[in-house]
């Protein structure tokens, strides 16, 4: 993979603890949380809970969700959507794991809830 696809290499997969997360600090922009729910799966979300902006990177990762440390919302890692009964969405960034390395696209993916009419975008 080359950088021309707007992908940037972040770290080795092992740099993120299994069932854990790391925060990616950026000079100008907001933090991104990287999660590793399974050995070779990594997801990235904006490090801001849709509830009151809690740092999702500090939550407990289990199954396909992370539990926000501030008030316990569960956020789906693959879509950024809050699990019912809560409603909201954290911005999602595409991630690829290649040869044990984590690559991230810094262009946020389309909002997972954009097509769901019930959800206020």
């Amino acid at each position, binding site marked *: 993979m080359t950088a021309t696809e707007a992908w940037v290499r972040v770290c080795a997969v092992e740099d993120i603890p299994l069932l854990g997360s790391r*925060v990616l600090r950026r000079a100008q922009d907001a933090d991104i949380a990287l999660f590793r729910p399974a050995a070779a799966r990594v997801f990235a979300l904006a490090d801001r809970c849709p509830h009151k902006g809690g740092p999702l990177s500090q939550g407990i990762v289990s199954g396909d969700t992370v539990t926000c440390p501030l008030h316990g919302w569960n956020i789906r890692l693959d879509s950024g959507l809050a699990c019912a009964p809560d409603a909201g969405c954290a911005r999602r960034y595409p991630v690829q794991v290649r040869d044990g390395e984590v690559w991230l696209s810094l262009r946020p993916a389309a909002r997972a809830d954009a097509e769901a009419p019930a959800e206020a975008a």
Partner: protein
Amino acid sequence: MGKPRLVVVGNGMAGIRTLEELLKLVPDMYEITVFGAEPHPNYNRILLSPVLAGEQTFDEIVLNPLSWYADNGIVLHLGKEVVRIDRARRRVVAADGTQAEYDRLLLATGSVPFILPIPGNGLEGVIGYRDIHDTQAMIDAAKVKKRAVVIGGGLLGLEAANGLKLRGMDVTVVHLAGWLLERQLDPVAGALLEKSLAQRGLDFRLGTSTTEILGDETGRVAAVRFSDGGEIPADLVVMAAGIRPNAALAQAAGIHCNRGIVVDDTLQTYDPRVYAVGECASHRGIAYGLVAPLFEQARICANHLATYGIGIYAGSVSSTKLKVTGIDLFSAGEFMGGEGAEEIVLSDPAGGLYKKLVIKDDKLVGACLYGDTGDGAWYFKQIKDGASIDARRDTLVFGQTALGDSGTGGQDRAASMADGDEVCGCNGVCKGTIVKAVREQGLFTVDEVKKHTKAASSCGSCTGLVEQILMNCLGSNFQETPKTKAVCGCTDRTHAQVRRAIGEHRLVSHAQAYAFMEWRTPNGCATCRPAINYYLISTWPREAVDDPQSRFINERAHANIQKDGTFSVIPQMKGGVTNPSELRRIADVADKYAIPMVKVTGGQRIDLLGVKKEDLVEVWRDLGMNSGHAYGKSIRTVKTCVGSEFCRFGTQDSTGMGIALETMLANMWSPHKVKLAVSGCPRNCAESGIKDVGIIAVDSGWEIHVGGNGGIKTEVARFLAKVKTAAEVKEHVGAFLQLYREEAYYLDRTVHYIERVGLDHVKQKVVEDADSRRALYERLLYALEGLPDPWAARIAGTQAREYTPLTLAPPKADRQIALALED
């Protein structure tokens, strides 16, 4: 070899609940066959009264539709009454000849209405009140007949009478005792009830026995005659004079019966292959007639049928509510008083209010409430817990509100609350929302309410109120089962079962625990993971794997997360004692890291608030102090007063004692946080009365109090022991805390733990039995020995990446261009 066969006789509430509990534990263990004499699937018998009153329909009260049986592979024989048990061949035979062989047999045949042995009791129009068939017969009779006589002024009789009246009949209730509900109410409350039912148009003949039922020429009932010679006309007679355990089938098979089918604490009959639950069973001489105890039996019985062999049924205290809309009465326990009992009575007959509490040996043993039952659930809990009420005696009768704690104060009266009143302040949930969810979604437990409405899911201080709302919606169908609830949605196992399995099967890692206990999720959830982590490390110290990813952020980072994502740092300050050089270092650190706030905590130490996560390790290094564990389910503080070294009243060196205890307990993890205090004399300046362990020095030694709590719901610590020497204090305190560490469920503070197991149990293990105390103390020291201070460990490099954010590699020129082009 095929699966063992389980045959259930009785398709009612207790039998089917046992199957539900069994299927939760072992879905595939048995081939199950059920015989039910009634031609219906299992329905909620309790709700026959609302059906009779026209408030609900039969379809609404079905608990297990036919599909449930099919889905679980259960062979169901409806409308087939078992008439014979052949124990030698291990099979049962139904009236129509259907047979089934068993390896285990469960008898759940319920009760039969007691039919008075008087002339005319077999006439057409004389019925009992037990099943939907009887209920339908009453509904049909009310359409064409006018006059009903109900024999029996108990719960069942009054509910029948109320329903028939609502359906337009003239109803007379004949009752042998001098007041209504004599088994549930005392005479005063009984009279209040009679008055309000009379206002609804019911007639009563109290203190009267029925001698004969007279028929007309067609063999239909025409009148009822009493012992005093009086007589009243009747078209329908409902016998509600009591129930008898339905044990005839078992008796005929030679299974030991004594009124009911005699069972032991595992619900096994004298034939080891045969179990019995429900109203047909007689346990320690009692046959219960309300569902809550039967459900408890079902749970224990299922556990033994599943061959888990955990749990004994030790009997139940039950409470009663009458399901007549608009009438509030509640009674529980030994409300009649009697020898050695004291009574507290609050009576306002004109206002329709009456409250009686019965106290024995400093404990609440019974309650009888009429008119305002808002505190019913609360009193019931006190009765079941058997906690001493000594400290609350003066205000007890005024109910929970009178305790004035902010958790429940002023809002505990679930019954009198309006739908728009807020119940859960954290999530803004109103009473109406909860009631609606309970009704529409058929919720039974506080947990379900939490899930569906979010009420009580945050700080939890409104849990009691939610319980009351549930109880008011469900009547005595409601079970408060904190001890028996599953850990979380990932499993059906309870905290007790999980603890036990981890201990018995030497489970030392999360993966082992989830695999062995067949967790439904691959790696748990944010609720169970921290609990399992605690159980692992407390059961197998130095052996189990402490998993940082299973700890809440505070315990993972060893600091307390704040609303803006920064952290607070509270260094250990043993006994609240510091010195100039520590203070100077704290000041320097605050300057160097631009810490926005320095505050003295409520726990006698200093808090540095607003520290950035990536600065934490450096802050700790510069402070050069140990972790205060202000973030963990762990030892927190030992507060002290100045004591005998300086104070003119001090009797012992309380400061020194506090420092010794805090040193001993350093780095101790526990089910919830643990706070101690040591005061130098009974003036108690360290507030020992509201601590998990509170020590008060007296001239002759030290008093140890346990189970206090100054938090959400203030609880005063209870006296555990008085000892002479400092060494004894350490051993007692250590042993108590180890017992708590070993036996409490995760997130139970000491007060909750003691409420559950009883102070006597604690005293037995910690005070009376010196060997047990020493062993506990040694286990604590073993668990703590060699544990590093977590801050020191992190300064030395442990878990470094937790504190280090990732950054992007300095952008190469070509990459930047590529990115720019893409944008």
